Structures are given as structure tokens and as C-alpha cells.
């Protein structure tokens, strides 16, 4: 577990004294790193202990452990904030958007990475431009457009734009990955009598599992956590997603801190769980996505 800051080539000629200094420095470095880790984790820890306090306890001893663990907070927040409904909405919207992003993104990525045709360059450039467009700047025109299409306050008002904005990244990740699949694989499948759809469905998609995982993780986190689209496109109580309900809940119950914290704890638990299970893939995926994006 020892974190060695010295390199093998550098240590051979060190005197015992320098070794001691280095060890001291490495210990100090570790302390600073642990301090930084506390800095990133403490807010979350504080959120969880506060979620289980009474308001009085919260005000009197905001940073101590709860005197009494108030599990009721979580249940009250769940009911008052309509968190169950919100979680259902978030789940439905996120899953549908992820599925659409995967289906359309992989198909388009396959065509753009394997075929030569007239408008290929235009299509690639178009999607490429999509990577640079600041999402929020399209909120107003999207709102106006969806108003005329009668899409506002439907699941479609979230699913369609989510998918559309995620497609460029999905397509580029897919294109990059598919370029590494040898053409011989397809030729063999063709001889076996498969058409393009068969090749895509039976050969290419199964080979793409790693990149499918990356695209799904990226998309899941983006959709699950989105606030701005939901804020602008969704008004009706029945359709509100978790982040939106949470923001409104804190506006409405602003002074009932432990209740608000309880609602936040509910909202955070799924993402934390997913992160704990998939952290390596999440880190790799988000980095791949951000570099392309």
C-alpha cells in the first residue's frame, strides 16, 4: 500500500539522510492528499448525517452525528416531495433516451465509419459541429419549437432532445471503435448470406459491447442528472424528474433543512451506488466522452 514517490532509477544513489527526507515528504504528501479527499467527500457525508437529524439538532449541532437517527425524514421527504413519482419519471426518461441514443448512434456510427457515399463528409461535419454547440443556448428556441409541436409537458419533450444532443458523442465514440473492427469479419458474414442489417445486428453490435457500455454510462449520467431541460420543458407535477423536483422542493421547504437533506439523500443514493459498482468504467467513459466532446 506504500505510495512510493521515488523512482527506481533515482533511489540507487541516495544517502540514508535523503531517504529519510523523502519518506517525510511522501508522508506529508499523503496527508495533503487525504485532506483533499476529505474536501471532496465531506459535503456528501454531511448531507447524509443531516438527512437523519431533527431540525433542532441540525441547527444546534450542524456537524455532529445525529442525536437520534430520524429515519422518518427520508419517508416524509419521499412522500411530500413526490420523490417516488420523480424517480419513476427519471428512470423512464433516462432509459428510453439511452436506448434511443444507442440504437440511432450505433447505426449512424456504423454507416459513417464503413460506407463511402456522397454526403458522408457533410453528415460527419454536421455531427461534429454538434459537439461544440453550447446546450443551454438552444433552450429558448427549443422551447418555442416544442411549444408549436405541442411537445411541451410530455416525456417526448425530454427524450427527444436528450437523444439528439447525445448523438454526436455516441456517433463519434462508435465510429472510432468500429474502425478497429477488421473488415474480414463482415466479409465472412456476407458469405454466410447476411444482409447489411443482419451484419449490423448479428456481428457488429455484439462486437461493440465495450463502447456500448461507455456510451450508456455517459448518457445515463447526463440524462439522470439533467436539470435545465427539465426546468424549461416540463411544468406538470406528474412528469417532473428527480433534479427538478429536488430544486423545487428546496424552494418550497427551504427552511425545513433536514427534510430537504432527506430528499437530496434519496436522489443521490442511486448515482452513488452506480458509481461504487462501475467506477472504473465511469471514469474511463467520461474521459473518452469529454475528449471527443
Amino acid at each position, binding site marked *: *500500500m506504500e*505510495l*512510493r*514517490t521515488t*523512482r527506481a532509477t533515482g533511489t540507487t544513489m541516495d544517502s540514508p539522510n535523503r531517504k529519510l527526507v523523502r519518506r517525510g515528504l511522501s508522508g506529508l504528501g*499523503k496527508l495533503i*492528499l*487525504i485532506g*483533499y*479527499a476529505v474536501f*471532496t467527500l465531506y*459535503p456528501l457525508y454531511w*448531507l447524509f448525517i443531516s438527512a437523519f437529524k431533527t431540525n433542532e439538532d*441540525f441547527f444546534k449541532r*450542524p*456537524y455532529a452525528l445525529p442525536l437520534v437517527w430520524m429515519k422518518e425524514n427520508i419517508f416524509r421527504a419521499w412522500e411530500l416531495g413526490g420523490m417516488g413519482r420523480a424517480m419513476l419519471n427519471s428512470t423512464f426518461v433516462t432509459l428510453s433516451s439511452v436506448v434511443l441514443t444507442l440504437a*440511432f*448512434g450505433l*447505426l*449512424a456510427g456504423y*454507416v459513417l465509419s464503413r*460506407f463511402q*457515399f456522397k454526403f458522408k463528409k457533410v*453528415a460527419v461535419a454536421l455531427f461534429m459541429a454538434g459537439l*461544440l*454547440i*453550447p*446546450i*443551454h*443556448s*438552444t*433552450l*429558448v*428556441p427549443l*422551447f*418555442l419549437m416544442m411549444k408549436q409541436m405541442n411537445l411541451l409537458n410530455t416525456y417526448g419533450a425530454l427524450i427527444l432532445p436528450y*437523444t*439528439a444532443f447525445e*448523438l454526436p458523442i455516441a456517433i463519434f465514440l462508435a465510429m472510432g471503435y468500429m474502425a478497429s473492427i477488421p473488415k474480414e469479419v463482415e466479409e465472412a458474414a*456476407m458469405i454466410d448470406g447476411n444482409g*447489411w442489417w443482419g451484419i*449490423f445486428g448479428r456481428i457488429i453490435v455484439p462486437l461493440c459491447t465495450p463502447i456500448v457500455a461507455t456510451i450508456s454510462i455517459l448518457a445515463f*449520467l447526463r440524462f439522470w*442528472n439533467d*436539470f*435545465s431541460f427539465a426546468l424549461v420543458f416540463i411544468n406538470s407535477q406528474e412528469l417532473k424528474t*428527480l*433534479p427538478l423536483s429536488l*430544486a423545487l422542493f428546496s424552494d418550497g421547504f427551504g427552511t425545513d433543512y433536514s427534510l*430537504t437533506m432527506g430528499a*437530496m439523500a434519496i436522489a*443521490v443514493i442511486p448515482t*452513488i451506488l452506480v*458509481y461504487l459498482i462501475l*467506477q472504473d468504467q465511469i*471514469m*474511463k467513459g*467520461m*474521459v473518452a466522452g*469529454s475528449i471527443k466532446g
Partner: protein
Amino acid sequence: MPTALRSKGFIALALLPALLLFVVFVIIPIFWSAYYGVFEWKGIGASRFIGFGNYSEILQDPIFWRALKNNLILVISAILGQIPIALLLALVLLKNSFFSRFIRSAVFMPMVLSTVVVGLIWGYIYHPQFGLVNTVLEAIGLESWTRAWLSEPHINILAITIPINWSNIGPYMIIFIAALQNISPEIDDAANIDGAHGGKKLVYVTLPMIWSTVIVTMVLCISGSLKAFDHVMVMTHGGPAQSTELLATYMYNNTFRVYRYGYGSAVSTIIMIISALLIGINYLLTRRKAE
């Protein structure tokens, strides 16, 4: 080989859904906002053509310039805060030991949290009465430093940069670790033999080797900072007295609070132009340096 005609059919059908969705929901709105930007329109009733009236009003509005300045503050704080800290962390967490893996996952964790949660937690951390910041300051005898962090103009936008940096350092750290691990051990050995250690090695060997990665992270910082919206929306709504307004919240507030759809559309077009300019400038600047 399947016939050329069947290939064509497949190309069209496979590309169509993605292309259609993307064009309708991403590309068309851009032109739509440019179009609505030349109208005075309240969302209901008739719209009135006013040419560049909205644009000249925006450019004369001091709040717009404040919003732009705040956005630039976020860009600068991201470049000066996120990149150096991420690079430093990457340098010391390069090895795959248990300890460094643990610290890495801790640093990365805020990235998966919803921006709403981040905004709300930090709103409490900055709370004037029970907030962690003021509590700590009082505990170490700096009562005079305590303040209402999110209310005082000039300070509040700086206070907002901290949670944004806090949550965004993780990915940059991982990007740098990947870049550093790509430096071949031969180069490292050569540098050691030539007597380059510590800071010298960092400046003359390591940094030039990963310079292209640094550029990428800078571009990401710029585009990321221009997207900032959620944190401010949750923590201050752009207030008090519009002191923490960003371009995106300025657009939001003008459109959905006072219902000036034409004006908001014009703002959204301006945001698009500014982002394109900034990314272009950064591209030119860093390209020259890299040569």
C-alpha cells in the same frame, strides 16, 4: 457483396433516424433563434419585426456585460484552478496503488452527482448562520472573515466558482493520468540520466510531452464554463440584484421570467457566437504555442 442498391437503402435507413432527430432538435433551433431574435415577441399575440433592436439593446444592457464578465471569471477560474490542481493530483496519483486509487475515486465522485445536489449542498455550506465555511472561520478565530458568501456582490461569483471547480477536477485528473502514463519510460530514464529531477523535469520534459493534452483540457474548460447554468440557477437564481447572472441565466430570466421570447432568442444567438469566438481564439493561440 450485397448489391449497391441495397447498400444505398441501408445507408439511408440507418442514417435517417439519427440525422433527423439531430437536425430537428439541435440544428434547426439555432437558426430559429437567429430568426426570432429580430422580433419583439411576448410569446402570445403578434410579434413585431424590429431588426437588430434586440441585439443593440442587449449590447447596451450593463447586466449583459456583467453576465459575460461572470462567465469569463468562471472560464479563468476553471483554467487556473481545475487544470493545475488536476495536473498536480495526476502527478502524485500516477501509480496504481490502493491508496492512489482510493483518492482518485474520491476526487472523481462529485462528477457523478446531479448539479442540483451540488448546488444545494454548497448553498448550505455557504449559509451565513450554520454554513460550514463560517463555522470553520469562527473556530479558527477569523470571525471578521465570515460573511454571507452568496449575497455579497463581487464575492458571490467567486464563491460559486469553488463548487464548480470542486466537481469538475476529477475528469481532468484522469485525462492527465492517462497522458502521463503514455510517456515512454525511455524518455523518463533519459531525463533522469541527464540530471533532470523534480520541477526541472516537469517543466522541460513532462509538460512538453503532454502539452496537447493540456490544450484539450483548456478547450474543455472553456466550453464547460460557458455551459454553466445549473449551479447558479440553484444557488442564487442569478441574484441578488443580478450580481451572479451568467449568459445562460440572463437568457433564461429574460425569456421565462419576463416573457421576452424575441430578446431571449437574440441572447441565445449571442451566446453561440461568443462560444465560437472563444473556442476559435483558444485554438489559434494554443496551436501557435505548440509549434
